């Protein structure tokens, strides 16, 4: 088993995927919820290695355990068997301080957007102990710098109810990144948005990734989204999930929405689609 030093800085991580150290490693990890006769297998034995700075998209039929993988990596769920190693350490219950974002942006309605975004700084060290001192200066600037990167410059003083769904989701990404996590876990972050807003946010997320180079694990239903954003795509089977296909995506960055209509891209989409259609029919046959 490889043990790595945990990285605390954004910058300086090697860009080439081949040489990069392993950020996330699932070895024969499985998850079962409940016990005895009521036990529900959520994830069958899965082995997955993700290099530092990689952008991995997880796709698969609904309920296949994609989110379970995210929860394993973040330490919210313990593996029933096997080992999960994140940043060189075994995931000992939520010590990882990863950035997370879900479909529901869950901004706190009583706080302005910038204060919402600063919430992780109130919790994670070393920011936590400086929070009172720096929240009106350095931390606020940090929040606003991120807001500017996602195109929300000047919206820091607004309240969540004054923003549209797409804007809230951008703020959600900022909140996930403010504490400079080495790892970003996204669970269908754009699922509730309309097509155009979604495509806009793909580019924003891509820019954020290029700028900060965190390791990203993105769970999505949208195959175009997976192919647009991912440097690597893992296709999962129906519940209990396992990884059916694992392939690298070599389209040049930064990718554009126009590229998603080119033949190579469409072919990749069709390949992914075929996997999932097969997985779904296999699942229904199994159930019948």
């Amino acid at each position, binding site marked *: 088993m490889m043990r790595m030093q945990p990285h605390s800085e954004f910058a300086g991580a090697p860009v080439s995927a081949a040489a990069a150290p392993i950020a996330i490693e699932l070895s024969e990890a499985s998850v079962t919820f409940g016990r005895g006769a009521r036990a529900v297998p959520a994830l069958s034995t899965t082995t997955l290695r993700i290099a530092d700075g990689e952008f991995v998209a997880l796709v698969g039929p609904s309920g296949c355990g994609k989110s379970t993988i995210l929860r394993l990596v973040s330490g919210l769920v313990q593996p029933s068997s096997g080992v999960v190693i994140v940043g060189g350490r075994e995931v000992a219950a939520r010590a990882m*301080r990863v950035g997370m974002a879900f479909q529901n942006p869950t901004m706190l309605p009583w706080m302005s957007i910038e204060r919402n975004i600063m919430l992780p700084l109130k919790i994670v060290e070393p920011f936590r102990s400086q929070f009172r001192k720096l929240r009106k200066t350095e931390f606020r600037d940090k929040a606003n710098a991120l807001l500017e990167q996602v195109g929300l410059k000047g919206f820091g003083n607004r309240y969540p109810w004054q923003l549209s769904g797409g804007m809230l989701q951008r703020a959600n990404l900022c909140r*996930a990144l403010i504490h400079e996590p080495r790892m970003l876990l996204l669970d269908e972050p754009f699922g509730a948005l309309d097509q155009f807003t979604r495509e806009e946010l793909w580019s924003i997320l891509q820019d954020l990734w290029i700028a900060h180079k965190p390791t990203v694990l993105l769970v999505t239903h949208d195959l175009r989204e997976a192919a647009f954003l991912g440097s690597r795509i893992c296709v999962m089977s129906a519940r209990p999930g396992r990884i059916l296909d694992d392939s690298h995506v070599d389209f040049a960055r930064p990718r554009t929405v126009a590229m998603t209509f080119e033949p190579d891209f469409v072919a990749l989409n069709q390949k992914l689609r075929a996997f999932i259609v097969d997985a779904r029919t296999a699942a229904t046959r199994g159930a019948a």
Partner: protein
Amino acid sequence: MSDFDYRQKAWSAGLIVLFFLAWELFCLMTGMSDLVLPRPSQVFVTLVEKFPILWPHILQTLATTMIGFVLGVGLGVVLGAIIGVSKTAYDTAYPLLVGFSSIPKVAVVPIFVLWFGSGTVPAVLTALSICFFPIVVNIATGLATTEPELEDVLKALGASKLDILWNVGLPRTMPFFFASLKVAVSYAFVGAVLSETVASNRGIGNVMMTASSNFNVPLVFAGLFVLAGLGVALYVIFSLIEGRVTGWATRKNDVITT
């Protein structure tokens, strides 16, 4: 928005005036004896005449109510926080709490009197025991309805239960809490007056009791008016505080109308 607000207030005031007018007319037309139902004008006259005598009793009732209320809120917040944070505590303690709250408080007053003698203490305790329940329920509900996604985001950051409670749980319960305060303060009033009626020689409840045994019905009604007035006043005070503290919860309306 404010235009609508004023019209709403005018309607409320109109309804109150209409109610008293109808009452007055009803008494006049039926020739009702003031031993049965005094006219509101009589009640107001009595209220003004007897005000110097009533004043210390008003203070007494107000004091017992507020002490009972403050203690009840304290107890309610602590219990509600414990129950709301832990699912196990919620399931375990709820039946007992419901049991307590379904006991008619009038049945408890004699026990308090037995323990502490008649007067202020049983009034405070009755007020407390009647007003803490809505607070417990509201705090517990507010805490239990925190979005699971947000909790996951914070837990993944290494947040402790206390961090989540402090930054998310408690602020989120504030609208529930203040809504329950308005209810609880009226309840506390009911409790205090109830206890004064049964076992005390001071307070509005006692004044009404004495007045009714003397067939001084206008004074009984004057006592009722005082209670209603105090109840409304406390309700308004807590509504104003609520608006200040938890404006974010109702602000959505502004967006729609502006």
